[in-house]
């Protein structure tokens, strides 16, 4: 079965000489389709750098990264933008919705960059909002929504292009415990439906909801524990 993410001996170095910082130091990891992986570590452990590389927002200094079988180092700027658009759905700690735009339009935005027609965009955005339980809030602006609701809009936006990977960076970091639970429940449902999810966090109780927990420290993976068996491939294939 093809891995969605394949990192081989990836390093990321900032600065030079004395000031050199190895944010990632020879990391190798493979993430299978349909997996729900939590990457956990203290700040400075390199987990955000890894997330940026996985999300095609940053390039590794050395090593290879294959996303869905594509060698990302070979891609130019435009192709990387397309990869971010089609293959990856981002969920951020602070939601990163566009504040003056309605929820439905926020969700539809990636489709606009994918060249999907206006009518279909709207239909798919509404369907996705419905899937995260916010169909009634489609015409609200982000400022009119609670934190948990905003994060659900962000998840709907991340999923609207039907990406192979949902990449979440501290998705519950800015939420109260009830909203956090809602979001994590949503992740579990998505996982159950066959989505591949990579979630960065520094909270162990959040990480425990994942099927596999990768612990990082000083730019290296120090442990990689499977808590629940990987879903049967049949379910993943049904995606």
């Amino acid at each position, binding site marked *: 079965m093809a891995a969605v993410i394949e990192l081989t001996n990836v390093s990321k170095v900032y600065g030079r000489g004395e000031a050199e910082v190895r944010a990632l130091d020879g990391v190798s990891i493979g993430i299978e389709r349909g997996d729900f992986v939590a990457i956990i570590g203290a700040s400075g452990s390199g987990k955000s750098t890894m997330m*940026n590389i996985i999300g095609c927002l940053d390039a590794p200094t050395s090593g290879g990264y294959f996303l869905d079988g594509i060698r990302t180092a070979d891609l130019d*700027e435009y192709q990387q*933008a397309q990869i971010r658009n089609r293959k990856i759905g981002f969920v951020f700690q602070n939601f990163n919705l*566009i504040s003056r735009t309605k929820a439905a339009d926020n969700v539809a935005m990636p489709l606009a960059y994918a060249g999907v027609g206006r009518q279909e965009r709207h239909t798919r955005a509404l369907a996705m909002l419905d899937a995260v339980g916010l169909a009634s809030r489609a015409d609200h602006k982000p400022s009119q929504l609670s934190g948990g609701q905003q994060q659900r809009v962000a998840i709907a936006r991340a999923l609207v292009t039907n990406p192979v990977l949902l990449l979440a960076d501290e998705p519950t970091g800015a939420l109260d415990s009830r909203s956090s639970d809602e979001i994590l429940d949503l992740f579990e449902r998505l996982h159950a439906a066959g989505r591949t999810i990579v979630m960065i966090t520094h909270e162990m109780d959040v990480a425990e909801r994942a099927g596999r927990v990768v612990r990082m420290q000083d730019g290296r993976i120090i442990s990689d524990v499977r808590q629940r068996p990987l879903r049967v491939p049949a379910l993943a294939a049904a995606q």
Partner: protein
Amino acid sequence: MSLLESARFALAGVAANKLRSVLTTLGILIGIAAVIVLLAVGAGTSNAIKAQIGKLGTNVLTVSRSTSVGGRAGAGTAVSGTRTRSTNLTLDDEKSLTDPVLAPDVARTAPIVQAQGVTGTYNNATHSVASFLGTTAPYFTISNSTVAAGSLFTDADQQGAAPVAVIGATVASDLFGASTASAVGQTIQLNGQNFTVSGVLTAKGSSGLNDPDDIVVVPLSTAQSKFTGYAPTLASITVQAASADVMNQAQNELQMILDARHGVDATNRDYQIRNQAQILTTATNTTQTLTILLGAVAAISLLVGGIGVMNIMLVTVTERTREIGIRKAIGASRGSIVAQFLIESLIISVIGGVAGIVIGFTGSAFPVLGVQPEVQPWTVWLSLAVSAVIGLVFGVYPANKAAKLRPIDALRYE
């Protein structure tokens, strides 16, 4: 990502900050309106001057005595020459100019004598006449003069030195009041001598300091017998060329004839020829310079407006750094970010341009300093193109700045 989508995002961006967009638009609006109005004023002035000169007679050349006789060269000739040299213009000179062989381009000529300080009186009204001329009938054709009432004097009046006068509209209204037509047939005194008013000239309208309607025209012979005496000296000869195209040929022919008659050449001419076409050219050049200056001032304000657009676009890009990061993270390519911000600045400047054209047209409807501005159609197209170019040129840098932002930096931006 189609341009249409970029345009939608751009429109949303413009609408997000309405007051700021309107104020930025204002910069372009004022610039474009200024260009249109000021160039219209320039064109209006130019046309007004042309019309004014046209009223004074087209194709007209005026031969007059030189006020200074050729300086050293003239004096030298006078001392060495034993031959008699006519330094005055005479009636014979005038007659010699109507020569179908030597001067085929001269249509007609009129001799002119002038008297200064002539005062007209009728009953108790008096009027100091600015311009008192004695001439022959062709003068009226040459100077584009027609009668509003009565008739011009005839060749018979000229031969008989009849005491008749054709008076201008200003003179008529000063002596006879509002109904100038009532002057016809009345007897007025010019410096105490009786003249019958044969006609009142159609008003030409004032051109600043000179009032072409403050005039009294009498037959040459009458003027000579009653005012200037029978000396053969003329003040000037008015010449009409066959057409406006042959002004220079006509001038050359006049010079050839008069040079021969006066025994002079180009170095020591004792007369000068004023060419209406040259005056027109000079006036046109002057107004063109004026128009260019006005246009330059307007262009500067347009430039300032363009810099305003760039300034606001830079602010917008900085302010929306996070948004740019988000858009890039969800799949916006550099091209679509550039398109979005470029279209945004294009929208601002083209809206400003269109509004400026409307304001420019409105502003040009009102006379400025007595001149009716005339909007030049080409300035409208030019303004539209210029405002679009401003939007592109001043939008490129901010748009590129936005597109070059790295998504991870942009997302972290607070």
